[in-house]
């Protein structure tokens, strides 16, 4: 068996880069992306990082500073980021069939069996192809374990080692690695984080090298097998393998925080209906049926001055379905049972579960024959119309028309890649 080799490929400033890709006015301009409801800064372009504006700041606190520096803010355009993320994964899959999508902008690749001398060159061709095909810059960390690959990626990104965004630990000498690891803070290691780092500091373990050279048995005693594993991984002994991706979703979740607090049942009903319709559309896209529906509502968990309430109810359907109307009826019934007056609701969500392929359908003894085919056609028509004319063109009356509960997204860029009506315009003048 060839020696295991992992690569971690990570997109630089992913959300901000997606925004910049389609908007020529943003070349060289500092860009931030805000969380749901335009709450906090969740992504920064290189220009913003250079200005020293930190991550996670509430937008209202930094708005003045942003204005002074000409920073342009965007609401999170997850439709765009998800499409670009899928494209990146598609490109990466051409470089290795064994791939784990770790997050929206990071993937692990199994490169075991590659000629060691060619690894950095391989990394460069990954970077070059993603740059040309998708206009996004990636950094590649290469090493003999996932934890080391993540660290190598960190080094590539921060220019601590490697060149041109590629850092290959397998090509570095033991002495080079020693001095590099001695310079990196232990908290930078994947899986160490903010809670563990101070405890390691207290034990005198401050650098990556110190943790690598620590006694694994002692760490296991003190903490758990997880920390012992980190030490092994840092020594280049892989303990973590790539995790398989399940192709079809076992659960489909749609949930959102409200732009403003919601008090009345009708607004909640509209929100839940809209969530069900989105989830049902996904369900039909993978040609599946759901056997159970869950509805969750809650007030803000953070505001101590408001009375708190949360409820989550699940119903098993008598017959699995992908019909928005049937799923909505079930969800609204659950909502009616969960709803209590007098609370300021902050979030509502639905989940479809017990998902199985349509061809495994088991009709109930009492279901009307022929109905299913009619319903299916109706739903197909609904999906066609909505994919042609934009989401929500045709919808259930229960979804309402007011949308006061929708997210606040005052700075949203267009769906450049997923909606015919909002494609980027080219000037032919």
């Amino acid at each position, binding site marked *: 068996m060839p020696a295991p080799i992992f690569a971690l490929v990570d997109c630089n400033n992913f959300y901000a880069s997606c925004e910049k890709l389609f908007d*020529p*006015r943003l*070349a*060289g301009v500092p860009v931030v992306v805000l969380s749901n409801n335009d709450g906090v800064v969740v992504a920064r372009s290189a220009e913003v990082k250079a200005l020293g504006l930190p991550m996670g700041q509430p937008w209202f606190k930094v708005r003045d500073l942003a204005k002074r520096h000409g920073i342009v803010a965007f609401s999170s355009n997850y439709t765009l980021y998800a499409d670009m993320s899928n*494209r990146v994964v*598609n*490109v990466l899959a051409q470089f290795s069939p064994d791939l784990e999508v770790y997050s929206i902008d990071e993937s692990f690749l199994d490169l075991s069996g590659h000629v060691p001398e060619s690894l950095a060159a391989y990394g460069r061709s990954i970077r070059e192809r993603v740059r*040309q*095909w*998708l*206009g996004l810059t990636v950094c590649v960390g290469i090493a003999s374990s996932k934890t080391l690959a993540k660290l190598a990626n960190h080094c590539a990104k921060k220019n601590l080692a490697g060149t041109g965004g590629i850092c290959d630990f397998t090509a570095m000498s033991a002495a080079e690695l020693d001095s590099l690891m001695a310079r990196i803070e232990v908290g930078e290691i994947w899986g160490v984080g903010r809670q563990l780092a101070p405890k390691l500091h207290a034990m005198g373990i401050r650098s990556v090298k110190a943790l690598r050279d620590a006694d694994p048995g002692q760490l296991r005693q003190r903490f758990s097998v997880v920390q012992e594993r980190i030490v092994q991984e840092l020594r280049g002994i892989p303990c973590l393998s790539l995790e398989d991706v399940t192709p079809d979703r*076992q*659960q489909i*979740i749609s*949930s959102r925080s409200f732009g403003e607090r919601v008090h009345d049942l009708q607004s909640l009903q509209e929100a839940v209906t809209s969530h069900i319709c989105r989830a049902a559309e996904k369900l039909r896209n993978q040609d599946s049926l759901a*056997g*159970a529906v*869950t509805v*969750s509502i*809650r007030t803000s*968990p953070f505001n101590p001055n408001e009375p708190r309430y*949360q*409820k*989550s*109810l*699940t*119903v*098993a*359907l*008598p017959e*699995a379905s992908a019909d928005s109307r049937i799923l909505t*009826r*079930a969800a609204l*019934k*659950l909502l009616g*049972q969960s709803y209590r007056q007098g609370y300021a609701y902050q*979030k*509502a*969500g639905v*989940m479809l*579960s*017990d998902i*199985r392929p349509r*061809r*495994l*359908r*088991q009709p109930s003894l009492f279901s009307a024959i022929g109905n299913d085919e009619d319903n299916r056609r109706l739903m197909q028509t609904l999906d066609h119309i909505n994919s042609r004319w934009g989401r929500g063109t045709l919808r259930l009356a229960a979804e309402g028309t007011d949308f006061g509960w929708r997210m606040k997204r005052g700075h949203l860029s267009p769906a*450049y*890649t997923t909606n*015919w009506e909002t*494609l*980027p*315009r*080219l*000037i*032919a*003048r």
Partner: protein
Amino acid sequence: MANAEISTVPPPGIRFPAPESKLCPLPIDAAKIPAGFPSPAADYENGRLDINTYLIRNPVATFFFTVEGRSMEGAEIFDGDIVVVDRSITPRHGHIVVAFIHGERLLKRLYRRAHRVALISENPDFPPVEIREDAEFAVWGVVVGKFKRLPA
């Protein structure tokens, strides 16, 4: 929905545990029972034309843009057309390209010969845009097709 079953799930924010599946579904058409002669056309299926494969060479690297203006009419690209842009093709002299220049997204023919780089229109009403060395200029992708839906 009359005899639907209700169960309470502990409410941890909006996170959902998977409810247990009580059904054991079996495929309806698990075993096909042959009846009669097979269709003589059965071996000739899969021949339907797909406009995607006609217009798109590399889906991962392909993006669509809507055209606004008349400067490329000589190349048969009209106002309102949707163009198919493939980023995986290396732009060369003579390609019709999407170019980002001075904050604008332009559709032009790329001229790159001797020391001259320019963006050429395909309409005599529109003069070429000369690209000077200090220009903020990037070729975004190469146009490989176009399409439009007509009212009917």
